[in-house]
């Protein structure tokens, strides 16, 4: 299954929030939707979920306009919140029913997920008696219980302790393995890097870059070298401004052009005590800062 957003425009009053947003997400893979606060991620998600209608553009599944009666969508919103004063089982079953399940199936599915996330003991408790992390797990069930085809998780890891984060990772991997489209939106780049095969970075309502994460990294201009050495001082002194020290103690050497790569590598290996030298590949964090940071 392939989900495609094509040239989505959306404005609220005078304000243009999305300007021709397009991206493609595939089933069985996780997709990262990145962008700074206010870039248009949530609006894109709401258009995808048919909460807002776009001014122009299309949402396609396998090339045809999406049929919301057939394609189930599960959503974990960034702004968490359910009914604080109602028993957990009641509201979870209600949400699953609203998504089209029968009462019986809903209870069964909710009980499965309560067990899966280790929350069975809270089944009949009121939501506001739970800790924040546990409330978040309950909220996750509203996104998963009806077995949706598309799972949208907005900042799923915020507020979770390492054990729960691990549990969530397993759940997410399981969903991906089932062939679902998993759409991540997060500012925690490490998680995106861990899960997502492809990404889109939205900046000020436009897609700044999108595609396969490996390709994006490969296509980066290869004009920097990362050098591990026991004696950085000597190299720094010889290369001057082209050389800077990184946080982990390794050196980053800026080349005048990518063509100089071989020559510089040779020079380094022959003249200095080098442990390792490689071409610099940016982390997702670096990419994000470059593409999303340009915003005013």
């Amino acid at each position, binding site marked *: 299954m392939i989900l495609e957003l094509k040239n989505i425009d959306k404005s609220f009053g005078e304000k243009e929030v999305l300007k021709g947003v397009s991206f493609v997400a595939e089933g069985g893979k996780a997709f990262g939707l990145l962008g700074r606060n206010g870039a248009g991620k949530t609006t894109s998600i709401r258009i995808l*979920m048919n909460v807002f209608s776009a001014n122009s553009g299309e949402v396609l599944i396998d090339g045809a306009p999406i049929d919301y009666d057939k394609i189930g969508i599960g959503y974990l*919103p960034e*702004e968490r*919140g*359910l*009914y604080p004063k109602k028993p957990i089982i009641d*509201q979870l079953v209600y949400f699953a029913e*609203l998504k089209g399940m029968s009462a019986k199936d809903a209870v069964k599915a909710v009980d499965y997920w309560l067990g899966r996330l280790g929350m069975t003991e809270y089944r009949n408790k009121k939501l506001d008696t739970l800790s924040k992390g546990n409330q978040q797990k309950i*909220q996750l069930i509203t996104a998963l219980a009806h077995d949706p085809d598309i799972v949208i998780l907005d900042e799923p890891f915020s507020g979770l302790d390492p054990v729960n984060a691990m549990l969530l990772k397993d759940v997410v991997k399981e969903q991906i393995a089932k062939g679902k489209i998993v759409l991540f939106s997060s500012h925690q780049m490490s998680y995106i890097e861990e899960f997502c095969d492809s990404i889109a970075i939205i900046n000020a309502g436009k897609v700044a870059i999108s595609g396969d994460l490996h390709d994006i990294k490969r296509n980066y201009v290869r004009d920097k070298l990362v050098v591990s050495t026991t004696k950085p001082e000597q190299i720094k002194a010889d290369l001057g401004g082209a050389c800077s020290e990184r946080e982990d103690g390794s050196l980053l050497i800026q080349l005048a052009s990518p063509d100089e790569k071989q020559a510089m590598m040779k020079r380094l290996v022959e003249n200095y005590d080098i442990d390792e030298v490689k071409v610099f590949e940016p982390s997702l964090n670096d990419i994000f800062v470059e593409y999303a940071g340009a915003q005013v």
Partner: protein
Amino acid sequence: MNQFGKILKFELKGYLRNKVFVGITIFLVVSIAIVMFIPNIISAFQSDDEGDVTPSDLPTMLIYAEDESLRDIVKEYFTAAFVDYNVTAAEGSVDELKNDIIAGNAECAFVMNSASSYTYYVNNLSMYDMNTEIANTVLQEVYRVGAMIQNGLTPEQAGEIMSVQIESGTETLGKDQMQNFFYTYIMIFALYMVILLYGQMVATNVATEKSSRAMEVLVTSAKPTSMMFGKVLASCIAGFSQLVLVFGTAILLYNVNKEALSNPLIASIFDIPIELFIYLIIFFVLGFLIYAFMFGAIGSTASKLEDINTSVMPITFLFIIAFMVVMFSMTSGSIDNTAMRICSYIPFTSPMAMFTRICMSTVAWYEIFISIAILIGSTVGIGVLSAKIYRVGVLLYGMPPKFSTIMKTVFKKQ
């Protein structure tokens, strides 16, 4: 439709599990039961004391006159006229008499200057003190009888003339406003209370979902029309069952207790003709719905629960004005005045105005029909509009938006 049913069920369950809602209902039913049994309770206490009322238990009314024969005549007539008083001739001076009243030994006094002139002394003049009116009538009668005797009639003839009985009968061809007044009053008041109470509940319910951000998931799961209609109908069913329970208890206990409650006033309340009862239900349900939709739409524009009270103010005002117009017209007796006629066609006021006119005046069937038709049309229209406002409103956070802004967004082509 399926979704609508699920929402309705969930919301209804919420009302039934709400301890405050259940508590209020039980309290009302118990209160009604107590009220209906009050006559029994009172008569149970009274039966022992009955017949023991002695003249000394009654408040004292003093009669003073320089002329002793005048004093005795007045005392005789007043004793017959003021059965609730122990009428006594005053001994001593006017000043002593005043002191007696201030000290509380006597409640009031008539100081006769002549047969047709007196001063009434009382410590605190009550709003409902009718003593001087009664005294005037009695004294006029005394004076007239005296005059007749002086002019040669025998006391018997004079007495006959004075006590002539006029026989009369009233046949009401339209509505008896006296008789209908009380149940109309009670029904209008019930409508007023229920709409304001439940309207607030609907608004709070929507705003709570919004402020707790449950809306974020809800809005992606259900259609706004289903949400709005489900919520409002659930509150309508809850409110209506509460009323049925309270009034049902009252009617049941009235029938059980009919003998003790022989007061014609109470009887008039329970003597609602069946067709009025049907109109009552129609106007009640429609009036409830139209206001509940508006309250729901308002609730969706508030980000915080605190905003609700100010946001609902225009609706509350509209409603209070309608209530005041109806109440003034009812008490003034001119039910069919121009304001009421206009109000019976405006959908926001017609539930109260038209119902009152049907109860207390004669309204042509086509007027009722037009009023109900306008009301039904408007209720559906307001319902759809409120669902649209809801869709726009629920995802707007921050300051409650201006009405014009919302309308612009709602009517903008999507």
